[in-house]
């Protein structure tokens, strides 16, 4: 039978087919491309321009950069506190939540007792409103809550004003909340990656006497590297957006604000520079400064991730 794909077609027909294909591609891609041009290209250009404009007059100025610098180098400055807290949240995500998610996924993959139920329950924080989780957590760690009772057994007491009304404990408590609710989607992603590993590989390793630790570290971990490296790249992409639900817990009080929250507060009008209408210029300026810091970091991380070859199977 003649292969239809190899049959030479008249030039006119090829042109008509190509024309149809081009029209189809234009119709399919026009709207998403326009959206991208507006919401990525124009938006970022405008944001850069805003960084160099005076809030009231719109005139060209470096004053926003001066303000950001002052806030950054002053130990009690908003941005200084915000950036320190942001780094705490990022480190928690990278050094605690990510590895623990990997471990949890491993035990699910190894079909620990009731693993299907655990997998669904562990995903609950992603589906329930943060308001519900925050309220429940606040009652957990309240001075008369269950955590206080447990701490009393070990001789610790929670201060009467609570953990969120003290600068020394507020951020750490929110970090614990983030760990409590932080595993959901990562466990699913790693679980999905592990499920694709050919069982025969692990079975043969098992027959050769491979224990659980070696199995995880020397087999599973390299085999799911594509997913892990993607997660690491995405984590670093959100480096300066790392935060907890500050708005719901403390509204930025008690030195809990992060860069993300600080930006929200300036835009929403409740921040120091926001006034009643919000200060887009200072926000754009801060964003531009930290984007310039973040770009080389993410490029380096991507380069680093690409050094480790992904295993094909």
């Amino acid at each position, binding site marked *: 039978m003649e292969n239809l794909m190899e049959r030479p077609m008249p030039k006119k027909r090829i042109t008509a087919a190509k024309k149809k294909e081009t029209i189809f591609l234009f119709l399919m891609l026009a709207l998403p491309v326009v959206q991208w041009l507006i919401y990525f290209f124009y938006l970022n250009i405008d944001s850069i321009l805003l960084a160099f404009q005076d809030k009231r007059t719109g005139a060209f100025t470096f004053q926003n950069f001066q303000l950001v610098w002052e806030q950054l180098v002053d130990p009690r400055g908003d941005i200084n506190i915000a950036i320190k807290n942001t780094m705490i949240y990022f480190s928690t995500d990278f050094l605690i939540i990510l590895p623990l998610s990997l471990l949890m996924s491993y035990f699910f993959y190894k079909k620990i007792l009731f693993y299907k139920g655990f997998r*669904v*329950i*562990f995903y609950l924080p992603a*589906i329930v409103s943060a308001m519900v989780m925050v309220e429940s957590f606040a009652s957990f760690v309240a001075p008369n809550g269950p955590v206080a009772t447990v701490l009393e057994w070990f001789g610790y007491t929670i201060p009467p004003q609570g953990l969120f009304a003290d600068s020394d404990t507020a951020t750490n408590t929110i970090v614990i909340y983030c760990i409590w609710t932080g595993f959901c989607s990562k466990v699913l992603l790693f*679980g999905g990656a592990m499920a694709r590993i050919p069982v025969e590989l692990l079975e043969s390793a098992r027959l050769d006497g491979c224990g659980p630790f070696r199995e995880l570290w020397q087999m599973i971990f390299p085999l799911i590297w594509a997913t892990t490296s993607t997660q690491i790249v995405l984590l670093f992409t959100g480096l300066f957006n790392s935060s907890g639900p500050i708005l719901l817990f403390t509204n930025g009080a008690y030195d809990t604000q992060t860069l993300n929250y600080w930006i929200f507060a300036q*835009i929403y009008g409740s921040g120091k520079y926001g006034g009643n209408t919000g200060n887009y210029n200072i926000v754009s300026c801060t964003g531009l400064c930290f*984007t310039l810091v973040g770009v080389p970091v993410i490029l380096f991380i991507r380069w680093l991730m690409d050094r480790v070859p992904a295993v094909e199977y």
Partner: protein
Amino acid sequence: MKNEKKNNSFLKKFRKEESILTQRNKSEKILFGVVFVFFAIYAVTLVFPFIFMFLSSLKGSLEYVDDLVAGTVLSLPDNWLFSNYADAFTGMSIKNSWGVPIYLPEMLFNSIVYTALTIFSSVAASALTGYCLAKYRFKIRGFMYGAAIFSMTIPIIGTSGASLKLAHTLGIYNTLFYPLLPSFSGFGFNFLILYGFFSNIPWSYAEAVFIDGGGHGTTFFKIMLPQAWPAILTLCIMAFINAWNNYLTPLMYMPDYPTLASGIYRIELTFTRKGNYPVYYAGLMVATLPVIVVFACFSDVIMKNFTVGGLKG
């Protein structure tokens, strides 16, 4: 057919019983036992918010405060006040910028519209771009793919000011249709998932359609899209959960059209001072119930289809 099924189930059973991966020696049994205990405790803490919220929503306001002070928030209500739910619908309200009160039913309507538009926009745009870039070779394809990866991995922050300004310029600020345009992003996480999915569907299906006289549109809508249904459904469910619980976007961009999430957050700022927490929790239950129902129905779909591969660009 019956015999085949019988054989399959026998093979599955045999594999389950005989797989060396599920056999554990003594030290592994201890390890898995300890991990199971940790998982069980963690799971209980995650279920706690639901029980806490449900029981609190049925208590009297004084009873709730008494239980909170006594640290017995999980005690059963003295009287099961289902009337709190009716009170939530008729009593919980916030005022829009004209001073007109907006009640829970209207917030529910706003939530439905906001969520539906977000799901449609985000998934539809990604389906269009994902399909075209996966299946067609055209001049700017490489540029578009590179731009998609670039915009995903470059850590741009602080554009919310420019975004708010843009919403004003486009005339979509403070309208119910706000999410339609910003969510119509064809180059994000959803794009990567659908790009991967469409890449794996053989092009021979399209060739068969072309031979039968069908066009590119027929191929996409009648052949390819139905085949990508598992991935699209998963993305729709994830978009539903995120949009339904998102309180920040409606708070900032559509203040006069509060959704349940943003409305209840705003109510909490004033409502709790009157001490009627149980009615507030009833409102939260109303807001949470649809997500729980959707998750209960589709948790299997989410668990099976939630995977992401490498991010090489």
